[in-house]
């Protein structure tokens, strides 16, 4: 079993409502689910779609062929009918769309009429459609009914019953009117966890003890703020919508100086505004974590679409020379653990840490058996209460063996905590002399850097153990690359390298990935940007050049078959 469903329509018509409901039903049935969304920067109109794949084996990419298309508007029919698989079906409501395409591939289900006849309003046709999809797959309805009950419980018993009636009407109609439908689904098993990249990143922040989050809304990073804000009460977090991104980063730094773990997030444009603040965090040695959700630039670019175009910017943004961390998780699971690691290292070394994602990873839903909270790390590195008060003297930027000076919480002791964006003395006061400047640069940069590098995990290696072809990528391309390697492994000796801890670049002592790359007869670097930014980083840091670059910069994610085809063509 490996089916794909696409729900298409105008913004505001409900493709997201149907998609969310189906993804939940499938993951609760124990299936592996992957979904991605394609939407325009508008609230109504246009053309949006929601694509869900569900299978009885792990899936982590979207496919080209669709088994069930739900057309909420006419455009969906014309634009996507060619994607239907041989046994696929397109479901639509001829009475609403005023169109009646011929052929057994089209299944006309009167969503609106069934809703009206069963006592529902116009907008409830979405639940009829959801029922109809389950009807043609022949899935058990218990899980759907359970989901409906949960969703509408707050609106009362009556509402729950009505929605179940409507779903049943859609289910029965579709089941009865599609005798030639040949879908068969596996029996349900243990429910799986269904989670997006953005949710997992926010979850990782909360599970790292974040106490303060400030941001200005910007797609695709807004979801991080929304999720954390939703949990603020329960976890004792202050979330503030700043007046701009300059304020957001400065607030995050202010809260961190005040003694709590702190974070901000934005997309490229807002991150650009944070540039000076990142430099401030570095100079004052104030830990801060920044979520950077990429979308295609320059400037406003394609606001709701995807690109990996900001890697070089994340590496080099902000003036001056200082250590930083740049992570780019490849899946929600990686986003959860890497955000936790980013917090830990930011606090341990008192540096800015950037966790990159993009619209694609942010919005895609993945399923897991679960996340292991036993793997979370948490150490409070701050100097608080008695341990601060009992010191004989305190200098915020005292020279130490490893460059890290314990960070006192202002007010916890009679000692004052002083820091400055100017070059400063050990006490934190403005200085001008050359000797202090050199010692402080040694402390901030040269002493910390090797220790930080030592914390970085090697890239993930997957596939043939002695590969002739290696495809390398970073961040959100993980799932696509992994499935492409699986698809091509029968034909080629192929493997992949995936970098999620990007900067500092992993050392080669734990795993000699450069040696591996050099031994391959073909190395390809796959990036969703125009110029191959990771390839450039690797070349700059190690001298290694990839044989071929595979780039895409139209703002759209690859479908599995597209990527597989392009890699295959490059291999020749």
């Amino acid at each position, binding site marked *: 079993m490996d089916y794909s469903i696409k729900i298409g329509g105008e913004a505001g018509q409900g493709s997201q409502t149907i998609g969310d409901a189906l993804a939940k039903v499938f*993951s*609760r049935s124990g299936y592996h689910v992957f979904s991605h969304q394609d939407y325009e920067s508008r609230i109504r109109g246009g053309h949006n779609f929601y694509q869900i794949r569900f299978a009885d084996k792990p899936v982590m990419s979207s496919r080209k062929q669709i088994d069930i298309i739900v057309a909420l508007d006419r455009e969906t029919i014309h634009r996507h009918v060619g994607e239907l698989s041989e046994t696929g079906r397109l479901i639509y409501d001829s009475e609403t769309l005023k169109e009646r395409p011929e052929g057994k591939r089209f299944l006309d289900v009167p969503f609106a009429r069934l809703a009206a006849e069963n006592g529902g309003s116009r907008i409830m046709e979405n639940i009829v459609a959801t029922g109809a999809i389950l009807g043609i797959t022949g899935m058990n309805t218990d899980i759907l009914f359970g989901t409906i009950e949960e969703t509408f419980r707050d609106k009362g018993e009556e509402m729950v019953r009505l929605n179940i009636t409507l779903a049943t009407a859609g289910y029965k109609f579709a089941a009865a009117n599609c005798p030639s439908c040949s879908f068969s689904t596996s029996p349900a098993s243990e*429910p*799986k*966890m*269904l*989670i997006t990249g953005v949710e997992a990143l926010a*979850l990782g922040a909360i*599970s790292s*003890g974040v*106490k*303060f989050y*400030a941001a200005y809304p910007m797609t695709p990073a807004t979801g991080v703020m929304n999720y954390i804000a939703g949990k*603020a*009460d*329960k*976890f*004792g977090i*202050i979330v*503030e919508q700043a*007046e*701009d991104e*300059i*304020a957001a980063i*400065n*607030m*995050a*730094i*202010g*809260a*961190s*100086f*005040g*003694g*709590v*773990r*702190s974070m901000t997030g934005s997309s490229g444009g807002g991150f650009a505004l944070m540039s000076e*603040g990142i430099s*401030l965090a570095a100079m*004052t040695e104030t830990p801060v974590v920044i979520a950077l959700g990429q979308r295609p630039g320059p400037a406003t670019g394609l606001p709701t679409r995807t690109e990996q175009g900001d890697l070089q910017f994340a590496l080099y943004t902000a003036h001056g020379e200082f250590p930083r961390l740049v992570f780019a998780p490849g899946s929600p699971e990686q986003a959860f653990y890497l955000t936790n690691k980013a917090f830990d290292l930011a606090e341990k070394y008192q540096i800015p840490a950037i966790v990159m994602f993009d619209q694609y990873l942010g919005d895609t839903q993945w399923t897991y058996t*679960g*996340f292991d*909270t036993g793997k*979370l790390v948490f150490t*409070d590195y*701050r100097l*608080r209460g008695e341990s601060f008060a009992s010191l004989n003297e305190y200098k915020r930027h005292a020279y130490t063996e490893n460059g890290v000076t314990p960070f006192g919480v*202002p*007010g*916890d*002791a*009679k000692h*004052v*905590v002083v*820091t*400055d964006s*100017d070059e400063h003395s050990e006490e*934190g*006061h*403005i200085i001008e002399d050359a000797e202090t400047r050199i010692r402080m640069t040694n402390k901030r940069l040269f002493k910390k850097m090797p220790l930080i590098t030592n914390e970085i995990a090697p890239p993930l290696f997957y596939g043939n153990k002695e590969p002739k072809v290696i495809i390398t990528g970073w961040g959100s391309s993980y799932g696509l690359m992994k499935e492409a390697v699986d698809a091509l492994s029968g034909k080629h000796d192929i493997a992949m390298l995936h970098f999620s801890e990007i900067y500092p670049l992993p050392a080669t002592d734990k795993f000699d990935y450069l040696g591996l790359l050099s031994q391959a007869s073909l190395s390809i670097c796959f990036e969703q940007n125009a110029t191959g930014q990771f390839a450039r980083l690797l070349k700059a840091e190690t001298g290694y050049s990839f044989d071929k670059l595979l780039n895409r910069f139209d703002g759209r994610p690859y479908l599995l078959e597209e990527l597989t085809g392009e890699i295959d063509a490059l291999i020749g």
Partner: protein
Amino acid sequence: MPSLDDYKGETPSWCPGCGNIIILKTFKEAMLELGIEPHQFTIVSGIGQAAKFPHYLKCNTFNGLHGRSLPVATALKLANSGQIVIAVAGDGDCYGEGGNHLLHAMRRNINVKLFVHDNQIYGLTKGQASPTTLEGTHKNNLPFGVLSEGLNPMALAVAMDCSFVARSFAGDMEHLKEMVKAAIGHKGFSLVDIFQPCVSFNKVNTYEWYKQRVYHLEKEYNPEDRTGAFGRALEFGDRIPLGIIYRNERPTFDERIPLIREKALAQQAQSLDMSKIDSMLKEFY
């Protein structure tokens, strides 16, 4: 009991005769008289001559970026609400580079005290016009002089319903001390604009210039009358009022957050509650 010596900081690098020197001395005396010890307050500053202020006394200090003292101070107050948080800025720092943050600090009514050392000129960068430089003056580095109307921080603050709006003058130490103490004692965002003559670069707004114009608000003046306050805030010419121009008792941003009513965020447990995390994860099934 603390003494003035307890507030001693680095030696100031300001010009002899600078208004900042008087403000510094007055501020230390005010803190001593209020009994606020150096570790009990944090001064957040940006960049400019005024922004060097916290280095020249002893206190918790975050000397950050040009224009950005208020966002840092806002979040510091939220994270560590036991601290008395003071922002010190210049006219360019606060009314120019950081203007947007000022608007929103007033809206939020965060319990931060902002002292603006207003010398109507850029001192650190050697004498360019600032947002409060008078229109038509300052022809040395602008071909036609300043063409924009000077910003009126008092009128802006009254219009924004800022919780505490006052003006004082470095040439009037007793009054200044009274204003510093009143601002720190006030619950809510407080703006004190302090005339601070720049002896090196501002040849127009000298000690003498201010002395000829300033007057103390009369005893019967009611700072809680917003309309009347707006009238006084607009007085900026031959006569300029000193004192508390406007005051209200709006609830502060920080006191409206239940989470920090009992205990500062930084004093709360900094650890992971695994059972809560597990139950959050369960919501994804």
